[in-house]
């Protein structure tokens, strides 16, 4: 094993060692010991990532096997690394944000009894995420995929005494299983048709895959590559919370805030985006799959943004914003602008982590009250949080020169250039999304940092406002809030330093890297774009340097829309707070639709969870009509219901009926043969 | 071909006659003075007319099963007996046939000992 290979290996192993030490020996090494070892582990990973980055820049990429785990027939199950430009960028982002979050956690979790456990989990997460991005084969990808899912599950339910946290982590787990099911099928199809799980070997056979078709159901041939890509993307939909598998992400805010920043904003949820970018040689061969990706992403980008407008919990606003931004990345994937997607992934990781940690800082200042209606005027008391959050928000809405501008504008332009089916719809969604993003971001910003100071008052009428009732109970459950007359104060340095360190890249990283990364040849040979989808080339031909782009940005429609959003938010929430209330009254039906998150949860509860409960508890008598009525909507559930009912009817305990069933079985087997 | 079965026919006829003739003779030759007790089908302790679903003592079954078991043992002895001489005549197999059956009987014997020891053969 060469020196570089040892380095590669150490990147994921250092956080793992930290996780093991803090997890198993947390009591022995104490609280300080735990955060020292884990931060050390992640810091090593970060420093090594920089070293590897420089090595990659010098042109040394790597693709090889480290350990062969099992061989089954021709199929090899291996642990291996693929170190290239895409990987090293992800490694830097993951390890840097993770390091920041580790430091921040010292302040945020200061009084929590599960301090060591928390550090162990986030280090374990870092390990899993690094394994995911460094993988050179599907199996290891899947391993990392499941491992980050597991840690996410553990962390959402970190405060496991809160029933809503348990509910949320169950939900995240189950929804992700749906995605994983698609993902696993996709991997299975790849393995079955290429006989290999190694990326390079699979990509080499991509053209053969594109030539094959497969009959999912007898008589309806599908292009194999389309089926594979859609299956893989269903996995990405679960992990990257795309409609309709997004429902778990807002609820995941039950977890501690550092987790929301690290896992549910900056890294894990972008795994789906990373995976699709990695699979670009496959996706490029199927326009159907790309259109599917595009439409799902566009829908997520716009419609999840709307939901951000009506949230009152500070973290939920940021959560819906994350959903919407993930939608943007997915849109970029759909139009073959993989590098733009990954670029946005990177900038988003910085500014969204910043926003989350800023929100966390506010929450600390407010003594764990998360309701924005109880805030206001915080800028006086929390200057660092205020300034950094302002930068984060500006980056998010795509203010020229800030990082978000470069990435988001590139995506919008790429969509504009694309001609694949669904691009028109997507263009509308991403443009409209700009306004929505600006509106909810600055609604939050104004409500929290400016205006009247609403904290320190007895919260009358706290119950009767809108919002998910379960969520409300949570904030009560863990609700301390400021006592009347008490003032918030700035958070300790372990909290503010990461904020500042994250604010710096949030501002400059786009300006610095757009030229090499997006327009240059950084991703050449890593991300594959077919000649049928030349959006990146067209984008590059219009690009005349970052300064020109930003200056031009001031004159474009997205900028106008963003400014309109900011101004309207200012007007509604600073000048005339009566207007939103009036709008709310007038457009009651739309408001209800948003308040209930398009009834996705209700739908799932009634049709999916309810259906399962119906079957399970034998409430089929009551649910009979509903299930049968629901055949068109949910034929599967109805079918399952019938079988279950049948089985219950049969299992009577009467032996003659058992014998009768066996005889029926024989007859079935007989007819089965004689007719077929 | 069919004439080979002639002895069987004779056997069946004789058997039938053996069953029927005494009954007919008795009916013809004997006095005929029926009463209620005589006309009842059985006289072995059961009430002839009552609910058929009475509880039989499980020991009836036990004895019956054991009887069938050892009865079947005899059934295996017949085919063995017919070829025992042939086996014994084969070179190298002088006593093989004999001991093979002894092993079989031995296994059943062990079962018999177990049943006996367990008290399955005692009525009370």
């Amino acid at each position, binding site marked *: 094993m060469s020196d570089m290979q040892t380095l590669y290996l150490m990147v994921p192993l250092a956080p793992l060692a930290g996780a093991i030490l803090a997890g198993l020996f947390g009591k022995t090494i104490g609280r300080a010991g735990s955060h020292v070892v884990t931060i050390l582990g992640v810091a090593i990973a970060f420093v090594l990532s920089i070293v590897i980055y420089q090595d990659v820049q010098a042109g040394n990429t790597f693709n090889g096997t480290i350990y062969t*785990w*099992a*061989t*089954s*027939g021709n199929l090899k*199950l291996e642990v291996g690394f693929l170190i290239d430009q895409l990987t090293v960028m992800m490694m830097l982002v993951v390890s840097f944000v993770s390091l920041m979050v580790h430091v921040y956690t010292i302040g945020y979790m200061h009084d929590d009894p599960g301090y060591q456990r928390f550090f162990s989990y986030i280090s374990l997460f870092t390990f899993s995420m690094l394994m995911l991005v460094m993988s050179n084969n599907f199996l290891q990808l*899947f*391993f990392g995929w*499941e491992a980050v899912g597991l840690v996410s599950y553990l962390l959402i339910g970190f405060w*496991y005494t809160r029933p809503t946290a*348990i509910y949320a982590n169950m939900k995240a787990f189950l929804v992700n*299983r749906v995605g994983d*099911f698609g993902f*696993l*099928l996709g991997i*299975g*199809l790849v*393995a*079955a048709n290429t006989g290999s799980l190694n990326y390079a070997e699979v990509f080499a056979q991509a053209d053969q895959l594109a030539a094959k078709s*497969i*009959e*999912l159901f007898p008589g309806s041939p599908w292009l194999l590559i389309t089926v594979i890509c859609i299956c893989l993307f269903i996995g990405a939909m679960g992990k990257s919370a795309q409609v309709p598998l997004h429902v778990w992400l807002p609820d995941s805010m039950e977890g501690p805030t550092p987790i929301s920043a690290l896992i549910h904003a900056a890294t894990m949820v972008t795994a789906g985006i990373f995976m699709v970018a990695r699979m670009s040689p496959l996706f490029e061969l199927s326009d159907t799959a790309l259109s599917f990706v595009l439409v799902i992403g566009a829908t997520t980008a716009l419609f999840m943004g709307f939901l951000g407008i009506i949230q009152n919990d500070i973290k939920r606003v940021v959560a819906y914003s994350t959903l919407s931004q993930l939608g943007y990345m997915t849109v970029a994937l759909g139009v073959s602008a993989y590098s733009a997607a990954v670029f946005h992934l990177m900038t988003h990781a910085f500014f969204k982590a910043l926003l989350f940690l800023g929100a966390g800082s506010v929450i600390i200042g407010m003594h764990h009250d998360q309701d924005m209606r109880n805030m206001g005027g915080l800028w006086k008391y929390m200057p660092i949080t205020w300034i950094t959050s302002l930068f984060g928000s500006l980056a998010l809405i795509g203010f020229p020169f800030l990082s978000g501008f470069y990435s988001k504008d590139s995506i919008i332009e790429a969509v504009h250039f694309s001609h694949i089916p669904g691009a028109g719809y997507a263009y509308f969604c991403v443009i409209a999304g700009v306004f929505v993003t600006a509106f909810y971001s600055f609604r939050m910003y104004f409500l929290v940092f400016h205006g009247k100071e609403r904290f320190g008052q007895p919260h009358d009428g706290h119950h009767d406002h809108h919002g998910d009732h379960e969520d409300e109970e949570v904030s009560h459950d863990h609700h301390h809030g400021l006592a009347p007359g008490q003032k918030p104060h700035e958070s300790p340095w372990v909290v503010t330093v990461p904020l500042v360190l994250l604010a710096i890249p949030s501002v400059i990283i786009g300006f610095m890297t757009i030229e090499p990364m997006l327009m240059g040849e950084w991703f050449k040979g890593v991300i594959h774009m077919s000649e049928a989808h030349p959006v990146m080339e067209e984008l590059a031909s219009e690009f005349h340097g970052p300064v020109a782009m930003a200056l031009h940005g001031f004159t474009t429609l997205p900028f106008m829309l963003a400014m309109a959003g900011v101004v309207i938010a200012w007007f509604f929430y600073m000048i005339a707070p009566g207007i939103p209330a009036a709008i709310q009254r007038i457009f009651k039906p739309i408001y209800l639709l948003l308040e209930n998150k398009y009834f996705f949860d209700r739908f799932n509860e009634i049709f999916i969870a309810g259906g*399962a409960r119906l*079957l*399970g*508890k*034998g409430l089929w008598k009551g649910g009979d009509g509903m299930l049968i009525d629901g055949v068109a909507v949910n034929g599967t559930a109805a079918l*399952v219901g019938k*079988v*279950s009912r049948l*089985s*219950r009817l049969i*299992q009577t*305990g009467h*032996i003659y*009926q*058992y*014998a009768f*069933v*066996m005889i*029926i*079985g*024989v007859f*079935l*087997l*007989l007819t*089965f*043969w004689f007719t*077929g | 071909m069919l004439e080979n079965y002639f002895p069987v026919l004779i056997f069946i006829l004789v058997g039938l006659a053996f069953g029927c003739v005494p009954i007919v003779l008795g009916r013809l030759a004997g006095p005929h003075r029926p009463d209620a007790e005589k006309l009842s089908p059985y006289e072995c302790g059961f009430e002839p007319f009552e609910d058929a679903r009475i509880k039989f003592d499980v020991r009836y079954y036990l004895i019956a099963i054991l009887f069938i078991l050892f009865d079947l043992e005899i059934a295996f002895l017949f085919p063995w007996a017919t070829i025992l001489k*042939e086996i014994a005549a*084969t070179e*190298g*197999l002088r006593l*093989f046939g004999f001991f093979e059956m002894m092993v079989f009987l031995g296994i059943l014997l*062990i*079962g018999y*000992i*177990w049943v006996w*020891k*367990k008290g399955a053969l005692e009525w009370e």
Partner: protein
Amino acid sequence: MNFVVPNFAPAYAELFVAAMGVVILLVAVFLKQSARPFAYLASLATLLGAAFITWYTMDGQVSYTFGNMYIDDLMGDVLKLMVYFAMAVTLLYSRGYLTDRKMDRPEYFVLATFATLGMMVMISANHLLTVYVGLEMLSLSLYALVAFDRDSARSTEAAMKYFVLGALASGLLLYGMSMVYGATGSLELSGIAQAIYHQAGNRTVLLFGLVFLMAGIAFKLGVVPFHMWVPDVYHGAPTAVTLLISTAPKLAAFAMTMRLLVNGLFELADQWQAMLMFLAIGSIVLGNIAAVAQSNIKRMLAYSGISHMGFMLLGLLSGVVDGDSRLALNAYGSAMFYAVVYVLMSLAAFGMVILLSRAGFEAENIDDFKGLNKRSPWFAAMMMFVMFSMAGVPFFVGFFAKLAVLQAAVAAGYVWLAVLAVMMSLIGAFYYLRVVKVMYFDDPLDASPISASADLKLVLSANGLAIAVFGLMPSQLIESCVAALAGSF
């Protein structure tokens, strides 16, 4: 007539077990109450001895004896070793349970020994009658074992049902055998295969017979619609017996399926694969859905067992594609791997039920697992391993078993079937995870610490760890399954 002394060598292990069974029966009946452990130790010794014999006579050669009624090959030897192992673990788990309930009569161990013998005969059968003799030997022992708790109405009811339905299934099987004999003129499996190959006999009769054979096989495997006995018997039987029924006999049933269908009726693969598909779909769907509703863990595991057998069939039905049998070895290997893994998991699952039971208390409801983590984190983790493995969570061995059979199904072109199976296993994940959830997140109904003998705890821990460890290196196990089958083709 020609008489020859048969070659006993391939059947030394069977002869040894038979002799020991008889000896234990005879000795135990004359021993005093205080010498109770004798039967237990002697039956364990029997299994150990048989394992030695099988191990040292295992040469990878195929040999026939008793006038070709009996076959000794690598598949048989490997399966027999697994049977000894499963039976030994079963006896080990059962002993404390039986002692607590005053059921540790020597007959339990004698019947277990004879059941083992029955399984061995089934595994090595090369003749329809040998199959039948082995099957009945196993079944009769099991009927008696189910009724072992004589004074329990539930136990005797279960035994009665098992017996009557088993008799029906035996009848169907025999009927099928007679049809096959009528059509091919042979009772010997290779003779049957030859006859079909040469297009001899009436095909309609042959297929008619196949249907009835299939019914008998399906009953023994406990797959839909011949599964009706499974939940009631698993539930009604004493847990120690449920443990026995749900483990080693599944291996024997697998062997019987292989012998009858693959060794005997391979030429009819297209037909029996279609039938197996019907059985597999039914089992996977019904097993998983019905299990969701159960609150009794034995019943839940019964339905789970039904679905697992359905999964195993996925491997068996993927062997021949359009008359091409190149995939057969891998497909049957995956099925064998699945059966072995299922036995391993089932041992641990019922072992856990036994572990939590005490004198006068049966831990058979899922609620009895509540808060296990607080009572014993270690065994909660072991149970979690088992449940995760059964649900097919990576990287436990159950995941690889599912993966192997699904791969076989996909390779044979049954993508839709694999999709269906995966969807059903997602439903299945729900009830397995529910057990994990109550162990970790609910408060115990009964906070007393676990009391069990050290040997039970030790072996159960090893069992649970094996599930995790084989998950890390599954390939050896898969490969040995494939290699074992390779000799029999």
